[in-house]
């Protein structure tokens, strides 16, 4: 994408923070293909701002693929093709006019397996801001501290910021990855099964954290864990074989599912 198009993007992406309707992420007739594999089939739904939306469904149903469509990470997979569109703040996110590099600055992502860089804790957090042009070391120090505090990790690591991030425990690493995503001040955070590699204690820490984060961020989470979805999310989308079967408020989905398929899944009769 050209730099002029990028310029347009930045201008528009940065204005107007809390215009709620503009803030909604509207997925419209999304189809995603990996080569011949039709992984997402005509999915439409609205993701509400400053809420937690959970995607659930059996393995391979396309949860990660949807997430990776929102911040265009699918662009990095060579045989992946997307059709339809995603509207956010008056932009068509899948169009050529949106530069994925800028988009990802606004829509951060945390992955299933903690993936800290083999650098120090400090450098992990500072990595994004540095690239995005923070030039002042004091400012950077502040960002690192704030991000780690927001990710509820600061107290555990403040004395060893120079240590290699790989020496942290799994749960700490995942919170580091969340802090790393927060450090570039995104508006939306996508989390793809952030707790699946963690023990219960680490998991509950992250869940508490997500509750706090939704004050300031739109949170989208993929989870395999039904209880987790029920506990923390405001809205739940149930997917099956690439199709969106049911979407609604979490309470309704879990207590009064409209589709038989949904009920079977959440009651654990398959999946």
């Amino acid at each position, binding site marked *: 994408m050209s*730099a002029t198009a*990028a*310029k347009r993007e*930045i201008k528009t992406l940065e204005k107007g923070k809390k215009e709620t309707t503009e803030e909604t992420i509207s997925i419209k007739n999304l189809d995603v293909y990996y080569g011949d594999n039709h992984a997402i089939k005509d999915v439409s739904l609205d993701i509400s701002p400053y809420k937690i939306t959970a995607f659930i469904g059996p393995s391979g149903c396309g949860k990660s693929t949807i997430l990776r469509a929102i*911040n265009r*990470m699918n662009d*990095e997979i*060579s045989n992946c093709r997307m059709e339809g569109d995603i509207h956010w703040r008056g932009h068509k996110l899948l169009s050529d006019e949106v*530069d994925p*590099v*800028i*988009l*990802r*600055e*606004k829509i*951060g*992502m945390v*992955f299933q*397996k903690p*993936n*800290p*860089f*083999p*650098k*120090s804790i400090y450098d992990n957090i500072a*990595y*994004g801001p540095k*690239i*995005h*042009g923070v*030039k*002042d*070391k004091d400012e950077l120090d502040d960002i690192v501290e704030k991000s780690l505090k927001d990710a509820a990790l600061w107290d555990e690591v403040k004395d060893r910021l*120079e240590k*290699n991030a*790989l020496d942290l425990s799994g749960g700490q690493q995942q919170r580091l*990855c969340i802090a*790393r*995503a927060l450090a*570039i001040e995104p508006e939306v955070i996508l989390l793809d099964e952030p707790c699946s590699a963690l023990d219960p204690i680490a998991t509950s820490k992250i869940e508490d954290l997500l509750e706090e984060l939704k004050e300031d961020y739109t949170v989208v989470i993929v989870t395999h864990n039904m209880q987790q979805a029920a506990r923390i999310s405001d809205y739940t989308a149930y997917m099956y074989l690439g199709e969106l079967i049911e979407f609604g408020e979490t309470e309704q989905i879990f207590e009064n599912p409209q589709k038989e398929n949904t009920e079977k899944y959440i009651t654990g009769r398959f999946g």
Partner: protein
Amino acid sequence: MVSLKSSSQKDDENPFQKGRNIKEKLIRSVLFIFASLAVIVSALIIFTLLEGSFNFFLGPEGSMLEFFFGTNWMPSGGDPSFGVLPLLMATLVVGGGATLIATPIGLAASIYLAEFAGDKVRNIVKPLIEMLAGIPSIALAYFALFTISPLFRVHFGASYFNMASAMIVISIMVIPIIVSISDDAITAVSSELEDGSLALGTTRWETTKNVIVPSASSGIIGSVLLGLARAVGETMVATLVAGSVANLTFSPLEEGQTMTAYMAQVAKGDIPPGAAIQAAFAVGLLLFIITYLIRLGGELITEHFTGGKEKKSHPFVRRAKERLERGWWRVKSILSTERDKVAALKNRYRKQKMGKVITFLCMIGPLLFLSYFIFNILRKGLPGMSITFLTSYPSRFPDKAGIFPVIMGSIYLISLTMVIAVPIGVGAAIYLKEFAPDKFYSRFLRRIIHNLAGVPSIVFGFIGYIILVEMFSVGGNLLSGSIILAFMALPIIEVSTEEALESVPDSFRDAARGLGATKWETVKNNVLPNALPGIMTGSILSLSRALGETAPILFITTMFAKNPPGGIFDQFMAMPTMIFYWTTHMKEEFQVLAATTIIVLLAILLTMNGIAIYIRYRTQKRRRW
């Protein structure tokens, strides 16, 4: 139930199959001996080097003090002196310089290949890089002497023999090593790390530079060290291009004799007998140790330092670093012309573009060199090509000279090498993979075989000559030449056979074993047939490499062999050594013949490689598991 159990039990406990059992044991022992031959050979090499070095140091002319600290290397004449520093210096300038040139180019090329090139480009470029690695060093030496060296003479006032041209051409040999290993290391960095960085809104270039390359750093450093070991052990280019006068100088524009070049000088018979030849043992031992340590370092780094762990630094150092960093940032922000994010982004994309262009050029550069090299050799050599040239005998008159017996010599040599190396290499691999995969001794054997691959070819040639011709009186003939080449080819055959065996699924083995077949029967009937294409590919590739080797047979071949060898105890001449003699010939007409011979050699090598690649391609297409 009972009968079932007995048939799947260990075969050597089965009382009903004594005959099979004895055969099985016999085969197992033979394979064990094949696998252990590498140990004997390694021990012989080390022992011979040590013994020769002792003799030299204890002899009247030798002195350890002078050897290690003397600054004068003057092996012949009334008052010879043996200070190895000049040889060491030239080795450092040529080998180190070549690696210094090759490292940034090779790394950049591997970055482009791994991160920016599409599958199509990769599929074209990787074989070409392999091809570059397959050019015999004697051919590159010819090119260096007659094409690169004149440039340095004309433009930089270099001497006729100069280290700079050797450096350039050896760097071309090192680049493929760095590219292929670094490419592996870079592609092995998990896509999760890559995703993690890209998801932060970084460009691919930023991700590559800041996350991927640092994560692959141990593999990259390993590749550089392996390349360095290769450069330090390179003989033909150093001999023909850098010169044969020991000279304690840093200047690449001057002549210098490397350690390998000195040994080659001994091989050519330009050295008076006595201490000067004994000194070659000491030089060989030093060379052996240096290349071994470099390779060992490379392997240790690659194996043990994955993930680029940071060193702990002293608080004082850290504070100083931080202060420096702060200062540097201030300077940067003052100098910065980026007024806003838009300009910054533009700049970031510009950097990506520049990175892509530069790494692309580094990938293309060696390929351009390859095509210019081929063009140049064809232009020089083709006029000399004719049926008569291929069918007549060498002569003192260039217009009558031909290479018929030389071609035959090479063909016989490589055939005999195959007869020796393939059974031993394949047998060793079968033993290590199928019979004793995880024992301590097999790990040790693997290590030894691996190390054998790193012994510089001139050391191989020298020691081979000493052991076979002087100790065992085999004579300077086809047999001893083949034995030397066979042990050089052996490691590659062993490794590729093990890989081929590895690729046969265990279910094939279990099925046969379940039906009561012995281990060897299983291997023979069920495993080997499926591994055959891989074994053939590896064998052909390693034999083609052996066919192009000059240094190891420099001691053995002789210009007096006018006829094709009639038996394994006959003297012979081979193409690489013929090229060597003609390249150093005073008459220009003979130098043309050298180019013509290079064309013939390259054509044969290309055919062999083509066959290997075809086999690999066909089995990849046909593979059903």
